[in-house]
């Protein structure tokens, strides 16, 4: 019996020390030297609600990626059909991802051509007799699904790139469901800026300005065939008002940001920041050809359908370099360079959920939470001593150990402590006491029956055991369900509650028992003071 007790004491001591070791970095900071190398250095990880930061859920509009793919395929199809000498008076994209076209000639020849060269398309309908046929082509479901999946993967990768270059410590970017992306950025100070950086599509395009036709006519609603109107947003530095300047552009995109190799912030003559672009060899060749062919014309640089600038091509440019100028400040230029380097999103994203907490609010919450834990804890500790005397003090000891275990486990398991998580700890204080109350009430009953101290304690513990297990398992069921269902903060609550339940089972059923046994065996107390 006594030998046994020694081992139990050692076990408790061991577990306490392990918990303290895990807890130490969060309390005293990181250790240097030899100790720092062999001991764990993880601090308790604070949730976004406590340390400030941004929680974003984005939806990738993957269908848009399918649509732009079909749009590109339409161009290819048109060219190839021309080469095959199949006359196509009309070809257009309809219903998002279908191509409607009219052909002149034999249907069999066309079908064979599609089967051999564009197997991703299947015929949805074909009408018309004789020479002219109206055909609608749709994209294969399998191919569309693949494109959507690829778009989400690509978007994830691009956003990861952008965030890395922006410089956020410990970002968490992960897919959620089939088309959602969850982004957690701790400690972000300017959430709006981060959002612009992450969420913008950043599709860079080069198009010629159509100076041959009238912009005025086009603005009245008569946009010439093959042209589009896009706007340049100019902000007046004094008033901050935004003016929109219209441009009449050729619809055909000459080049996109895909051929970009690098983008850097540079400064112009009046210290005005601009973004210098460098193309890869393929891009350089394309740019060379475009500029050679269009000297004296204006080339518009467009980002996400906004015209940034439209300089006149003075001469052929063969070095593979260009620049984006505009009325932006250093921050904007810096962010623009990042998104251009990281590449465009394959499809636009929609913000489904956006929660951001400033750092000062988090600090307030921690202060208030700690204050509540301390005050609540002291009151309960005092109350137990008043109500159960020495036995109450034993329960208090178990309670303090319980708190150390929870904190140590949080650090050791790298769990996240959130505001509801702090509430969970406080709740655990109240409920951990319950197990001891159950035992003590039983011991009192046994003592009233006239049993000697040791027998009363034995009886109290064994009779309360099953009740305590039942009561805690049911709470654990609720906690586990909560964990499954929860997002962020709620999950944190479930984690601390679960850890708290397990810790309180250990401290109430095992630790307080051992303390009783030690006190009785050593003869420090002769009767149960309860």
């Amino acid at each position, binding site marked *: 019996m006594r030998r046994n007790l020694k081992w139990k004491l050692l076990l408790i001591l061991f577990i306490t020390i392990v918990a303290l070791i895990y807890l130490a970095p969060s309390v005293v900071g990181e250790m240097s030297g030899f100790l720092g190398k062999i001991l764990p250095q993880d601090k308790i990880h604070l949730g976004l609600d406590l340390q400030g930061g941004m929680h974003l859920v984005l*939806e990738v509009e993957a269908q848009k990626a399918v649509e732009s793919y079909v749009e590109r395929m339409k161009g290819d199809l048109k060219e190839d059909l021309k080469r095959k000498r199949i006359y196509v008076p009309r070809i257009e994209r309809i219903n998002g991802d279908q191509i409607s076209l009219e052909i002149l000639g034999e249907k069999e020849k066309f079908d064979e051509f599609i089967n051999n060269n564009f197997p991703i398309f299947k015929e949805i309908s074909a009408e018309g007799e004789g020479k002219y046929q109206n055909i609608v082509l749709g994209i294969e479901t399998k191919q569309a699904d693949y494109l959507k999946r690829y778009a989400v993967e690509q978007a994830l990768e691009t956003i990861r790139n952008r965030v890395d270059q922006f410089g956020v410590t410990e970002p968490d970017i992960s897919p959620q469901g089939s088309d959602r992306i969850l982004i957690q950025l701790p400690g972000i100070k300017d959430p*709006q800026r981060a*959002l*612009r950086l992450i969420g913008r599509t950043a599709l860079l395009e080069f198009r010629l300005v159509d100076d041959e036709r009238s912009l005025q006519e086009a603005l009245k609603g008569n946009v010439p065939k093959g042209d589009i109107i896009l706007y340049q947003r100019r902000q007046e530095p004094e008033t901050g008002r935004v003016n929109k300047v219209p441009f009449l552009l050729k619809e055909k995109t000459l080049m996109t940001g895909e051929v970009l190799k690098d983008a850097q912030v540079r400064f112009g003559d009046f210290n005005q920041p601009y973004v210098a672009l460098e193309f890869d060899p393929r891009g350089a060749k394309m740019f060379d050809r475009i500029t050679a062919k269009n000297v004296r014309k204006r080339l518009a640089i467009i980002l996400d359908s906004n015209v940034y600038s439209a300089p006149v091509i003075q001469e052929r440019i063969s070095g593979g370099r260009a620049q984006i100028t505009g009325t932006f400040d250093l921050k904007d230029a810096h962010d623009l360079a990042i998104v251009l380097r990281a590449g465009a999103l394959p499809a636009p994203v*929609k*913000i*489904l*959920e*956006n*929660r*951001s907490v*400033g750092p*000062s*609010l988090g600090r*307030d*919450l921690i202060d*208030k*939470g700690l204050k*509540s834990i301390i*005050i*609540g*804890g002291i*009151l*309960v500790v005092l*109350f137990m001593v008043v*109500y159960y005397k020495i036995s109450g003090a034993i329960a208090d000891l178990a309670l303090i150990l319980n708190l150390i275990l929870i904190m140590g486990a949080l650090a050791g398991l790298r769990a996240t402590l959130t*505001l*509801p998580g702090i*509430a969970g700890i406080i*709740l655990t204080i*109240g*409920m951990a*006491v*319950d197990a001891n*109350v*159950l035992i003590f*009430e039983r011991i009192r*009953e046994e003592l*009233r029956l006239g049993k000697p101290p040791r027998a009363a304690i034995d009886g109290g513990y064994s009779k309360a055991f099953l*009740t305590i297990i*039942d*009561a*805690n*398992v*049911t*709470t654990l*069921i*609720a*906690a*586990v*369900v*909560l964990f*499954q*269902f*929860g*997002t962020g*903060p*709620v999950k944190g609550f*479930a984690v601390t*509650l679960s850890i708290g339940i397990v810790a309180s089972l250990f401290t109430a059923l095992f630790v307080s028992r051992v303390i009783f046994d030690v006190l009785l065996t050593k003869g420090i107390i002769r009767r149960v003071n309860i």
Partner: protein
Amino acid sequence: MEFVKPGTKIDFLGIRRSAFLLSGLLIGASIISVIFHGGLNYGIDFAGGTLVQVKFSEPTQVETIKKNLASIGLDRSLVQRFGERGENEYLIRVEKSVSDLEGLSGQIEGALQEAYGKYGVEIRRTEMVGPKVGKDLRKKGILAIVYALLGILIYISWRFKSFIYAVGAIVALAHDVMITVGAFSIANKEFTLPIVAAILTIIGYSLNDTIVVYDRIRENRRKMRRDPLAKVMNSSINETLGRTLLTSLTTLIVVVILLIFGGGVIHDFAFALMIGILAGTYSSIFVASPIILTWQERK
């Protein structure tokens, strides 16, 4: 020290009709309040929308804030003081959620900075939940509560080898949840994600209480084979009464501390827990066991 002297014999089951009446009245009031308010007052977590928590450096008024939001057409948004009076913090809630990059919170920040100066306002928290996510969360919240109840039903049926006890426990739980939700509705507080967490905690907690009593009934039935069920239940409830009150008291101590010191976000959470614990303590004495007795007598 002892709250409940040994040998206390209160006839809890004798007054069960009055207890049922009281519970019925409370639940009735809850239901009427929810209907009267046109359903639950969902926060943006479940309803979707935008929420901005702003701290002003100088004292201001709700009306002034609304006036300053008029320039962006948001003068009809809900503006509430948040936390202590001296803290100058306000919540601005707009039902709309905008999924483009600038978002509503950016506009709100801009409008307020124009009115109060760049350093006069601090945006402490913004939350935007799209309608799709809100619907998802609502579904998940209900599912979580249903799953928790199911798990508990199975566990009790197994541990007490009796379905009736499981039903009794679930009735007691439903009782506590309805009263908590009702209290929320009467106080016109918002139903948010942390509140669902609070309700699940109440479920776990109230069950704790109920199981302690059931456990004693199970034990006493073996000892008091000759006695009628009502008597067994009465002495079981009396024997565990000290513990029931004590545990509720210690838990209430911390919850009340949270209510006082926890601050804005935690305040409602603690309020839900407080109501739930009170209801749970009451139900484990006056509902969970008496309902089984009534059921048995009917048969």
